[in-house]
């Protein structure tokens, strides 16, 4: 079909070098992710300079693999989409410079994509019926956003974290109880052996922001609890800490999310970002949504963590809307959702 629109997408905002080919905005022809997690584990977290160095080493192979797996050529692509923010500036710059040069060399339009817009758009891949408006909770290592998705490319940020991102809190607590990096999957695994109601950790409310989040207090409460146990020579139950912490995060996210959906009379709720891969959170949101008669959507874990397929989907809708980036496109580490 000659009416198909194919997007080659590139993502390098943090520690995954990724490329994908997306057909007509919802069909994933390929989704290649070259992960650096093993390397960063040596340092207990993502080291920006190492991430940038790895991106430049892997980027051409990743893109070539994405084209090959899709059985596509660069010539067939209608546009090149790339994440240009937010994220680690050095890491973003590799993908941005690469994408610009490919688009320029191949004479293709270039579409700069917002990373969070990508995460939100990941929901379109497996839920062909999902269309705006819907409420979306974006939770990852770098972001915690509650977004009212009014239309493709039109977002209203209702709330965000005032301090740590949800995923960041997972990483810090995982480190405190000796689980290491990356914290999300490790806490989730440990929590399975523990009692989520064993310890009462705080569920923080932000006074002047009804939908805003704060996780640094929760993180401190966990650290204080551990120190308290040590001082009293009490046994520290890692599993109970992991489970109770996870429950506290989940409770806050669910409460804010459902309240926002109800108050805005939105009947669809989606979740996105790395923390969306957390089964406890997903289940809690699902049952809360069912109770309120809200339809719940979530991407498979592979589309929750950073990937280029989601950038291709977001890039497709931006492309349709006429968004075109210039050859002077720059990486913007603190890019706001909805800004250009």
């Amino acid at each position, binding site marked *: 079909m000659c009416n198909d629109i194919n997007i080659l997408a590139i993502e390098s905002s943090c520690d995954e070098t990724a490329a994908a080919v997306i057909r007509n905005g919802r069909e994933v022809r390929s989704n290649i992710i070259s992960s650096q997690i093993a390397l960063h584990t*040596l*340092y207990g977290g993502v*080291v920006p*300079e*190492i991430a*940038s*160095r790895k*991106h*430049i*080493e892997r*980027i*051409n*192979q990743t*893109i*070539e693999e994405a084209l090959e797996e899709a059985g596509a050529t*660069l010539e067939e692509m209608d546009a090149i989409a790339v994440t240009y923010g937010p994220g680690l*500036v*050095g890491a973003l*710059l*590799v*993908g*941005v*410079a*690469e*994408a*610009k*040069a*490919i*688009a*320029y*060399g*191949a004479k293709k339009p270039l579409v700069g994509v917002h990373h969070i817009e990508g995460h939100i758009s990941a929901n379109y891949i497996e839920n062909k019926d999902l269309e705006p408006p819907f409420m979306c909770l974006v939770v990852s290592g770098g972001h915690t956003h509650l977004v009212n998705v009014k239309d493709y490319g039109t977002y209203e940020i209702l709330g965000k974290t005032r301090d740590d991102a949800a995923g960041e809190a997972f990483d810090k607590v995982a480190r405190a109880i000796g689980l290491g990096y990356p914290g999300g999957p490790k806490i989730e695994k440990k929590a399975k052996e523990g009692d989520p109601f064993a310890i009462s950790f705080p569920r923080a409310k932000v006074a002047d922001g009804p939908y805003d989040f704060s996780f640094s207090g929760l993180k401190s409460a966990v650290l204080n609890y551990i120190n308290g146990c040590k001082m009293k020579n009490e046994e520290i139950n890692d599993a109970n800490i992991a489970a109770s912490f996870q429950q506290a995060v989940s409770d806050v996210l669910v409460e804010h999310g459902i309240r926002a959906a109800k108050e805005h009379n939105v009947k669809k709720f989606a979740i996105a970002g790395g923390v969306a891969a957390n089964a406890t959170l997903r289940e809690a949101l699902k049952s809360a949504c069912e109770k309120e008669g809200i339809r719940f959507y979530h991407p498979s874990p592979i589309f929750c963590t950073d990937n280029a397929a989601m950038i291709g989907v977001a890039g497709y809708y931006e492309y349709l809307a006429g968004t075109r980036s*210039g*050859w*002077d*496109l*720059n*990486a913007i580490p603190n890019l706001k959702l909805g800004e250009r």
Partner: protein
Amino acid sequence: MKILGLDSSGLVASVAVVEDDNLLAEYTINYKKTHSQTLLPMLDEVAKMIELDLNTVDYIAVAMGPGSFTGLRIGSATAKGLGLALKKELISIPTVDGLAYNMVGSRELICPIMDARRNQVYTGLYEFCKDQMTVVKEQSPMDILEIIREINEMNRDVVFLGDGVKVYKEIIEKEIKVPYYFAPANMNKQRAASVASLGLCYAKEGKVESAAMHRPEYLRMTQAERERKERLKAQHDSENATL
């Protein structure tokens, strides 16, 4: 043979197209804008001016490092992306060699110095026999006093260039014991014409690589790697001490 040259290793952004013994275009700016915003628009401008069909370029030569880590990666990613799209191979030019090639034909010893921070410079030593450049001392990070001492021992006239001159001028003037001068403005910073011209020599010698395999040469570990290495070494030493 047509070579596209790129250099964004330092403060300068530079794009050039060299065809055999002709410089078709060179665009160099030394301004505060980031390379990410300048390099590709500069290439676009150059291509328009000389009606360049990028498919007619044989190789893409790029300053591979050392230099600003981010600057190097912008140049590399640009070269790699062009190489991928145009199915062209790359030529990696050591940044300091590229700088030295600005001075082609000089009788003096050539000493480019780039500010490497942490009290170091990226430097090397080069000499010319007519238009043939010989590497006397390969590019490496070192103490400015150390390279001056080596030059003094060689007892040869020398020319200094590079962005490190501004930073270390007083030290050089104080410590150098041989006749010397500082290169003038038209040749004392990175120039893509030099990268492309030297690239032409490399291409003739078959020193080319795939766009996929090209990566910058930083000549320096990341801070995290360095600290980890030191930590492991200290650990190893203390374990040995207790044995």
